[in-house]
């Protein structure tokens, strides 16, 4: 089956890893006269964790919502795996392997964990009925891989702890062949041990080749987990740097002033 290496059969001209998983090019979003996202370009490669930083209202959530299909851009192109795509709805995004973990988690409180995990993508039997047994089985598998002690899968999720709810939101994102994962403040509502679990998961997913956009305020998380940071200020992309080229002060300066400190020199790129 390894056709690529055989003589006589031409190998793919571009190695797959060279093509970014996703490129957003010249994205703009206007609300009336207000420009929320001002001609921003950003990309993400397989296995890469890119931190998206900025003040509240800097446009980072808006940019991510455009990628996840929750919002349509006014201008700009999105390419996934090198192909131009149109993302008009969350379903479009999911069909392209783009999954999002929202800060609010976006769970239906009255439904149980499997119903939330499969919301909008319910498994059905041959007769078109809901296959609740299979959904429970599958949900148990993926959820208990994240947290072996998560037993109360049939409770409405309103009864669950913050950490358990986070696990459901994560499970929902990784169950369906995710290629590009958007995490919006995934640790903001969590305690230290739960934060460690999420950090561990991010490392594991990126090692599996999944590209991750990490929207975060937490400098520690960003420097611990990200390969690259993109800083937004007043709707513009004011800097994209490999994480080992910048210091926390540099990043803070970009967030606050929209520019690097006056006497900035790149740190060793070694």
């Amino acid at each position, binding site marked *: 089956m390894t056709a690529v290496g055989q003589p006589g059969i031409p190998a793919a001209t571009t190695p797959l890893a060279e093509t970014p998983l996703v490129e957003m090019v010249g994205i703009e979003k206007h609300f009336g006269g207000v420009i929320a996202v001002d001609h921003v370009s950003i990309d993400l490669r397989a296995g890469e964790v890119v931190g998206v930083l900025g003040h509240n209202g800097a446009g980072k959530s808006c940019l991510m919502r455009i990628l*996840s299909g*929750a919002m349509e851009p006014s201008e700009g192109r999105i390419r996934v795996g090198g192909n131009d795509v149109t993302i008009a*709805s*969350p*379903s479009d995004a*999911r069909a392209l392997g783009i999954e*999002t973990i*929202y800060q*609010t*988690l*976006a*769970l*239906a*409180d*009255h*439904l149980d964990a499997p*119903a939330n995990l499969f*919301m*909008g*993508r*319910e498994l*059905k039997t041959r007769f*078109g*009925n*809901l296959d609740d047994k299979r959904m429970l089985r599958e949900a148990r598998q993926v959820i208990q891989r994240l*947290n*072996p*002690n*998560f*037993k*109360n899968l*049939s*409770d*409405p999720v309103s*009864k*669950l*702890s913050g*950490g*358990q709810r986070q*696990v459901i939101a994560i499970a*929902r994102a990784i169950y369906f062949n995710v290629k590009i994962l958007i995490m919006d403040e995934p640790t903001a509502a969590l*305690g230290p*041990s*739960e934060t*460690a*679990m999420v950090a561990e998961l991010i490392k594991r997913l990126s090692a599996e080749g999944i590209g991750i956009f990490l929207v975060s305020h937490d400098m520690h998380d960003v420097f611990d987990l990200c390969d690259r940071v993109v800083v937004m200020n007043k709707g513009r992309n004011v800097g994209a740097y490999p994480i080992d080229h910048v210091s926390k002060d540099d990043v803070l300066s970009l967030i606050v002033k929209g520019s690097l400190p006056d006497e900035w020199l790149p740190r060793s790129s070694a």
Partner: protein
Amino acid sequence: MAEVLSGTTGHRRRALSAGALHKLSALLTLAALIVVFSFGNDAFFSVNNGLTVLLQTAVIGLLGIGMTVVIITGGIDLSVGSVLALAGVVAGLLVKAGIPVVPAMMLGVASGTLCGLVNGFVITRMRITPFVATLGMMMIARGIALQVTGAAPISRLGEAFGVLGNGALFRILEMGDNGFPRVIFPGIPYPAILLLVMALAGAYLLRQRQVGRHIYAVGSNEEAARLAGVNVARTKIEAYAMSGTLAGLSGVVLMSRLVTAQPNEGVMYELDAIAAAVIGGASLMGGVGNISGTMIGAFIIGVLRNGLNMAGVSSFIQQILIGVVVIAAVYIDQVRNRR
């Protein structure tokens, strides 16, 4: 860290019983009512009166099924009483125009579906709140029913028109000596059978089908449902169409029982339907409710009305009591959830 993420396993039993507990207490209330009324009046606990209750409850029950579906989405349908009247009038007029009873009734039901679809479109496309949208439809449908009939009842619709509302399955008759038929077993009224079938269909739709799951999801957290790829607008339109269809069906059943198309019928029925759903545990905040609860709620109202009637209690006092029951049911539920 795993300990922090895991919940207490004791949660499960308690959470599962929350909905069941409400249903049980409603069922006990119903049983208590039947016992009390039976002691009060010998005629209450009889086959004939039981059938009367079934017949009386069928209309509220049918409306209640549709209302429950809409309430679970977080909405409300105030138009069902008027849509009931419109559907009955449409069926009556069509029969008068020479169309056979069955297709005429089907078109009557379809007029209810149409009203529901309009409700759904006004709510989702024009972004009018369900309260206002269906309040508008309440006036529009009533107005049409009154206008096309000149506010006069349509009578002399023929025997066939009355079969659905007055007929019964397994009715056993015997020719008496005096030449009149004598009823040996009154049979199961068609409206009661229709109610059972629709209740089962509604419960199946809500529990087993994707549309039902989406109805709960939309009512529980509309934004989450949208972000999860649920077609929120379509789900809502389907819910209001179901409510309209059931309102149309109950209109046809009611007018058939009267063998008269009455444009004034069904005033305030929407409130009984809402009461039935709420007594049965549905939450007007959305996301909560089920058909079996609503059926119990409808029968509580039906038995209360019937029993109080037989006890000679005035209809005004009945209204007061039903109002108290509605508030008490919701209050008890709230207290339980707060615990």
